[in-house]
């Protein structure tokens, strides 16, 4: 079983849309897939039309085991299940701190699902916290969406540093460009220099498209309602790269 986290310490960069679309594509590919919504805002959950309720709340989530099983919901798509996010997840930090190995808790919890799923996607909350640390420990791959501006490439450096300080494996972290507008010179130049200076980046670039914003209206993954759009095709290409990184 592989665990992939979609992480960035800032909001609005395309984490949720990435988590939703990639998990959909993984399931379509035949992999038994679970999308785990760790964000108290529960956006992934909303996109799949599932109620943002986790029975027994963050307490139950941290206990793991049967509490997870009771909450898993089947999405409308074959092979794809979801663990809903919940407002009580805003207390993750406090609850986790009580543990004696606080950064390993998530790995332990997800381990019980080992035989049920081939891949688990983590949609992470936009912060630097114990939750993030747990994600860094648990994930086999950390995927970071970057909007192609100088500011975002700076935040990538920050995340890199975070991992380094915690002595985590650096090659776990991989970036990709999201919401890219090819017409803007700034975007094109940022992308060009980033590719030149960094190896930890995927080739697929997700364009800025209003289609993607409409996911909130359709409440479905992009490939379901706009399969031929350039954004959908870009996500397919992204999934191929991610799959190869995880399973080859």
């Amino acid at each position, binding site marked *: 079983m592989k665990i992939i986290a979609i992480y960035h310490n800032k909001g609005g960069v395309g984490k949720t849309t990435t988590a939703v679309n990639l998990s959909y594509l993984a399931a379509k590919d035949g992999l038994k897939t679970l999308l785990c919504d760790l964000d108290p805002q529960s956006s992934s959950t909303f996109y799949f*039309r599932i109620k943002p309720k986790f029975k027994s709340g963050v307490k139950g989530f941290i206990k793991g085991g049967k509490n997870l099983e009771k909450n898993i919901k*089947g999405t*409308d798509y074959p092979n794809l299940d979801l663990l809903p996010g919940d407002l009580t997840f805003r207390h993750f930090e406090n609850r986790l701190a009580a543990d004696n190995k606080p950064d390993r808790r998530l790995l332990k919890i997800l381990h019980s699902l080992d035989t049920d799923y081939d891949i688990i996607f983590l949609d992470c909350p936009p912060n630097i916290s114990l939750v993030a640390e747990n994600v860094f420990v648990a994930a086999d791959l950390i995927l970071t969406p970057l909007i192609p501006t100088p500011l975002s490439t700076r935040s990538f450096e920050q995340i890199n540093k975070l991992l380094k300080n915690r002595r985590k494996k650096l090659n776990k972290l991989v970036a990709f460009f999201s919401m890219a507008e090819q017409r803007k010179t700034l975007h094109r130049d940022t992308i060009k220099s980033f590719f030149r200076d960094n190896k930890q980046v995927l080739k697929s670039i997700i364009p800025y498209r209003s289609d993607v914003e409409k996911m909130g209206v359709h409440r479905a993954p992009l490939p379901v309602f706009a399969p031929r759009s350039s954004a959908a095709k870009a996500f397919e290409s992204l999934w191929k790269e991610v799959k190869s990184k995880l399973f080859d």
Partner: protein
Amino acid sequence: MIDKPVIFEISTQQNIDAFLHKLNKGYRFEFENHETDTCALFDTFDWRFFQTGYWVLVRRKTMELHRLADFSLVETVDFKKLPCFIWDIPESGFKARATSVLEMRALQKLLTIRSTAEKFIILNDDKKTVARFQIIAFDGDKTGSRMIRNIELMRVRGYEDDFRAIAKLLEQVGAERKSHSAFESVLVAAGLSPGGYTAKLNFQLTPEMPAGEAARIILRHLLNIMRLNVPGIKADIDTEYLHDFRVAIRRTRSALAQIKDVFPAEATREFRNKFAEIGRMTNQLRDLDVYLLDADACRALLPDALKPGIEPFFDYLLTERKKALAKIRRWLNSKKYQQVLSEWEAFLQTADAASMGSNEHLPVIDLANTRIYKKYRAVLKDGKKITPETVDDDLHALRIDCKKLRYLMEFFASLYPADDIGALIKQLKKLQDNLGRFNDYCVQAETLLHLIDRFHEEKTGTYQTIAALGGLVGAILMEKQFVRSEFQVTFSKFAGKQNKRHFLRLFNE
């Protein structure tokens, strides 16, 4: 993820509408698509696959083997031409499993089943799919068959409460939960009774029953078996229709002879002769069938040098078979044959007390015990006389005694504990097997020797054919000697103390 669906049987379209109406109150549902499927049910005339616990279905160019209990799929095999016999089935796991079941019988299409599935999704107020269902209508191709409707309800993980609520709605409109699909209901609605025909004597007698009544039950059962097999003989579907027909005749004659003093003597004699004649009319075809079924074994008995010469012999057999079959068809369609059967049927209905035999009112258990034990003693007596020097005819006589004993035991089996009588019949079968094979070899050798003369006179085939036939005779006579040498041991086992005790206990106490 996907679970196994829960199946409900729902009787009318009105009930389905009532369910949809109730469903509409708490949920929305949407039509997704519909699928039609056609498959055909196959089995032998005597339901061999059904008896072994399987359904054989054919869908397009694939034959499927399903377990009876839960419909699970065990094997499949793809074919170009629809298989009829075991040798038509392509090499596969399916063929391996089917070999001992099918043997030499033909697979026949019993029913075509069409099903139309309308697929729906059930949505909550977020328009999230919380469950799925299919309305499946089954239809068999026998005219007038009732349409069977199922609703298969499939849960979505995490929405168990909704699933339970919807299942309750179904129960409220009278739908019944079923453990398996509508398959068996479709068969019953089409008028098929799975396992309905068997050549076994599965009637029940009771010990106090008057012997006359018991005899009539037995004979009516045998007459029915004869009648049921005639269409299959005429249509030449497989060799076993004729075989079961002949066995029923043999048993009829044996019953008339062995169940003594139940019917008037004159009528008994008359019908025995009439059935003997019917039996004789079928001898030729049966002999040819047996030879042709054994063709591969015959070929294997010959040295390689003589093998090619035997083929004209088999061609000759096939030609003769065509003629014999035509003869039987004419006979079975004839007025004379029909007349014998209706006279016999009339005879079995009447119970004219005046002309009946002295045993007519005897409790059948007494008659059974007496006749069986007496015949058993006769078998022992005749068998003990046989030595390696005894002439072949004495072995044939013993074989006939054994047959009479076996038939008696089978007629009256329902009067005794199944395990006990089953075990004794099994012991008797072993002895009969040895005597039967010996007899087959004697007859075959004799027939082939006659054929050699005939082929020579009529100049059928070449000298190689005659040489091959000669080779076959030689091989058969060697097999005959071997079987003969096994007789002593086989008989002593049957005549042993243990069997004696069992026979005594069951029939003479």
